[in-house]
């Protein structure tokens, strides 16, 4: 019998009581393998062509292009999903209150409310939202994937990362955190000074994307250190 882990398959009550859920991605650990993106697709039943989580590369116009000139080249990644901002422009923009901030800090979408005007996508400075241009196509079909409590989406609505709201409500960690093979992703309550995310942000230098836009993202990146560290943010 395999061991059980708190937050993975054993509920962690701290997650259920959180008031400002946040995520920290360690850029020293991320190897750009897209496991988080695949786990996300599987967990949330995201249609083909849509991604709630994508792994961006610094360097060139294509995936996995190194930055710099040989031999001084570096590979760096930024796995990017909804930042669940404290001051979310998408929530302000939505004309029907379909996208909203939950008491635990998650920015969620009510697919029944959404009229598909895509104003939230215009308002998001990070392009972290995706739209169902057609009836979502799942491959393999939805019945054999891990559906959990994820509501089905009709065509014509906007969707995005929910920090796996249905898992978090049950006290479980988001799927991308669980499947990351290098443990680059940590998740917890930013309001709790003893949580793993709070400790990491205290101990290590970190950045958020576009801090000057005042959105106050809840997803932080720990700055890369060591011999191959790139200057600047990534």
């Amino acid at each position, binding site marked *: 019998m395999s061991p059980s882990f708190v937050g993975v398959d054993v509920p962690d009550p701290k997650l259920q009581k959180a008031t400002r859920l946040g995520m920290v991605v360690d850029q020293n650990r991320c190897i750009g393998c897209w496991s988080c993106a695949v786990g996300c697709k599987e967990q949330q039943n995201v249609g083909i062509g849509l991604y709630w989580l994508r792994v961006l590369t610094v360097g060139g116009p294509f995936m996995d292009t190194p930055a710099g000139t040989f031999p001084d080249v570096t590979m760096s990644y930024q796995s990017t999903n909804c930042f669940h901002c404290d001051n979310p422009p998408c929530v302000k923009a939505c004309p029907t209150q379909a996208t909203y901030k939950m008491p635990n800090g998650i920015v969620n979408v009510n697919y029944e409310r959404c009229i598909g005007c895509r104003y939230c996508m215009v308002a998001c400075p990070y*392009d972290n939202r*995706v739209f169902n241009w057609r009836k979502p196509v799942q491959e393999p079909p939805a019945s054999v994937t891990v559906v959990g409590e994820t509501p089905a989406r009709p065509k014509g609505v906007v969707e995005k990362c929910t920090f796996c709201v249905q898992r978090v409500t049950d006290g479980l960690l988001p799927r991308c955190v669980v499947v990351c093979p290098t443990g680059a992703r940590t998740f917890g309550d930013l309001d709790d000074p003893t949580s793993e995310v709070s400790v990491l942000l205290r101990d290590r230098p970190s950045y958020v994307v576009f801090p000057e836009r005042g959105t106050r993202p809840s997803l932080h990146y720990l700055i890369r250190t060591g011999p191959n560290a790139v200057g600047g943010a990534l």
Partner: protein
Amino acid sequence: MSAVSTESVAAAPARGSRGLTFWIVALVALILLGFGVWIYQVARGLQVTNMRDNVIWGLYIISFMFFVGLSAGGLIVASAGRLFGVERFAPIVRLAIVEATITIATAALLIIPDLGHVQHFYNLFIHAHWLSPMIWDLTVILIYLVLSLLYLWLYMRRDLAAQGSWLALGTKDTGEAGRDRDHHLTYILAWIALPAAVLVHSITAWIFGLQISRGFWYSSIMPPLFVSSALVSGLALVTIIAFVVRRSGRISFGDELGSFLGGLLAVFLAVEAFLVLCEVLAGYYPGIPTDAVHQLFTGRYAPGFAVEIVVGLVIPFVLLAVAAWRRRPQIVVLASVLALIGIFVHRANLIVIGLGKDPIALAPGTPLGIPQANGSSFATSSVYFPSIWEFLIVAGIIALSALVFTLAIRYLPLKEKS
């Protein structure tokens, strides 16, 4: 004299009746086609458009902005003329209000095909979110529509009553005292209509200008720029239809009014050019190569900007600035058509360039929403040209607008009783 004009009015439909029938049949065909395509779009989803996750809005929103502008411009011209006592506007005031009313209704219709989940549009009313500029815009457009209908009706109700039309809505008195009272009421309403028209397009501008996510839009110049574009396009359209409708004898005015409108349009064009310069220079001067303003000069959309400036601003301005030229109706109409094209291109540039770049701009970029057979299913920048379905739906809505306008011209009393 009056006998002659009555005769020509009576004769005009008979002479033009075949052309009119063909025109109406063509419009109805376009409306039905557009409606059919919209049903197809609802069934298949917005994948039938060429919008994707990297081009979030397209032809529908561009046309929406354009028609709100046409409406605001028309009503500003009509009500400012009334407020500031520009009596020479009188022959075309009713025409301008008809134009403003129909184009604002058209703008409202143009939003509908853009909604992906249109079945749930009623959430706009029952779950309205008052922090959203889109709700401000919806509210002001509905108020403005009612206001312009009321304004139009006040101008016309005594004449409608004299015609025995049911549109007089119970008004029976056609006497001078009543007309004078209505004339005063239109003056009061002009005080509301003018700021409302400025506001309706400012709020449309704030849908874009308040979004910090899009550097090209996030600017306090957006409302003035939108109002100035509205003045150019609204006046241009009113001028064109005034000359067209004059041929049918439904309104009459001398060429000197056309010359006056042309001169006014030249002033509006100069203001528009000034505001575009303010916008572009502020973006260009700091020399940040990633600023979207550079796409106006280099790259895919540079020809569009050239059309906006040369065809839409410089040529019509020159045509109208020369007094001898603007006395000729053909020149005034030509310059108005060019100005209309210029403003449409200006608005297309605004949307396509404003949304054209993935803000984070790291590879591979934003997922497109539909996997691509060739090449990446992600993109860091966009290429957008509307699909045939988008064109057909917009054409259907414009045809409906033109049909209502044709009927309004045919049946409403457009002439001021002097």
